């Protein structure tokens, strides 16, 4: 059976395209608490993340970068969901996101918690692109580790 490019619709969902076209939270922070560059050595995708923590809360976040639509949209989506969360909640979201990328169907509860980032679910069917979606999430963990190491 011949397939056209229709199968791609599952990957390139409207929410993702929207974030790629108009990435959110790209203004640089004046005085970030933590800052990291993440790079995917296989493809050269780059994410630059800045975090502003207020106590244990993410009070501001900025993501910029260069790379494919998946990596850049995932970064933009991440900023929306992480903003205002505690560092512990942010770490937990990363785990949920990673499970969505590598595991089975997500439950309704997990789907709710991942908010618009759920739109990246389709990436699962394109295994080589999973690392694109995960790049900004590992940047987040690196940025957190620098200033607010995971609580035991």
């Amino acid at each position, binding site marked *: *059976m*011949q*397939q*056209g*490019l229709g*199968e*791609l619709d599952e*990957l*390139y969902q409207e929410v993702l*395209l929207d974030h*790629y*076209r108009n990435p959110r939270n790209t203004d640089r922070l004046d005085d970030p608490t933590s800052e990291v560059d993440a790079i995917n050595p*296989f*493809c*050269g*995708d*780059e994410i630059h993340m800045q975090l502003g923590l207020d106590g244990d809360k993410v009070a501001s976040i900025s993501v910029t970068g*260069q*790379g*494919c*639509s*998946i990596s850049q949209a995932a970064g933009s989506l991440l900023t929306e969901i992480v903003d205002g969360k505690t560092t512990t909640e942010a770490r937990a979201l990363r785990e949920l996101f990673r499970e969505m990328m590598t595991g089975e169907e997500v439950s309704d509860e997990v789907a709710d918690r991942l908010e618009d980032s759920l739109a990246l679910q389709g990436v699962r069917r*394109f295994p*080589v*692109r999973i690392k*694109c979606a995960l790049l900004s999430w590992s940047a987040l963990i690196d940025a957190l580790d620098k200033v607010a190491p995971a609580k035991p």
Partner: protein
Amino acid sequence: MSPVTHLDVESIRADFPILTRQVNGRLLTYLDNAATSQKPTQVIQSLVDYYERYNSNVHRGVHTLSIEATEAYEDARGKVQRFINAPSPESIIWTRNTSESLNLVAYTWAEANVAAGDEIVTTAMEHHSDIVPWQQLAMRKGATLKIIPETENGRLDMEQAALLITDRTKIVATTHMSNVLGTVVDVKALADAAHAVGAVILVDAAQSVPHMPVDVQALNCDFMAFSAHKMLGPTGIGVLYGRPEILEVMPPWMFGGDMILEVSYEDASWNDLPYRFEAGTPNIADAIATGAAVDYLEALGMDNVWAHEQKITGYALGRFAELEGINLLGPQEIEDKGAVLSFSHDSLHSHDLGTALDQLGIAIRTGHHCAMPLIRSHGIVSAARASFYIYNTEAEVDVLIDGLKEAQRYFSKAGIA
């Protein structure tokens, strides 16, 4: 005038079982040959024959199987020697791949001959495998790495080369053909410049030996590195050619079985060439299969291989001109350009293009092609690359062009292209 081609591509294709494979419901269009080539039945069968009929260790047995294996292994070395017109079989060292061959020179010859204040000259078009070993050497030794730049039209700047190669230069390390730009470098001119100042020249021939006639003596190079897997052979085996006078006095770098002459508890002496550089049980099966790959290419004739690739690449260059939003990297004329077309898109990342083409059964390479400095010097972070070989056809170029147009339509409807 387009070159006459003597390859019977239909019968060549029949030798490559993988080319009948379906990918995502379409016949595979394999255009990632610069990464690795496909393998003909003759090569696959030589592996099977070895394991089924005469598998045994080499150089150490008196029994029939060991004798047969040793003969086939050394026979393959001789085939490679003749293929690149090396002066002797002893000048052919089996390695794992191009990268190991380059590292071997960096850790042996260069370790012994490069000192603080010396200069190493390489080019702006190198694969990471031919940059990083020299960076590391320069750091270890306090030497300086000099880079011959690329001209505006994707060639190597030979005027700059003449200025950069000086009596401080100890080694010139250059690609023979860029895996990104397809540029064929005038290695002979660089060899002459290097020799004039008493330096040696090492050629990364990973992309040339598979695609064109290469004669190490005519090029007058001191070292040459290439990988079997890009020339119809198996993975896990590569070649380092070294000028015999240089190899004779070059210190070994890996120690163990096969590379020794005599061992006491206190000391050891080294075996003859080339075994001095082949410690341990070698990759016997893959060396033999490399011989089969050389046989296959020689039967076609490397002039014909080059002519065929010129024809396909010329055709592809013409068809690429139809595409909008696509920017070709490297020379746009076919002269001294190999069968490699790298391109970026005005708004699409190469991964998005690559995923779309894969849906259509088309395999291209995407990303930085292990040449990050080169890709960045073009103001981009990634590129897509189509690369051709003996079994590719103009019809496959058409499939690629149609695929790119379809991807362009898809992404522009999605609002991102």
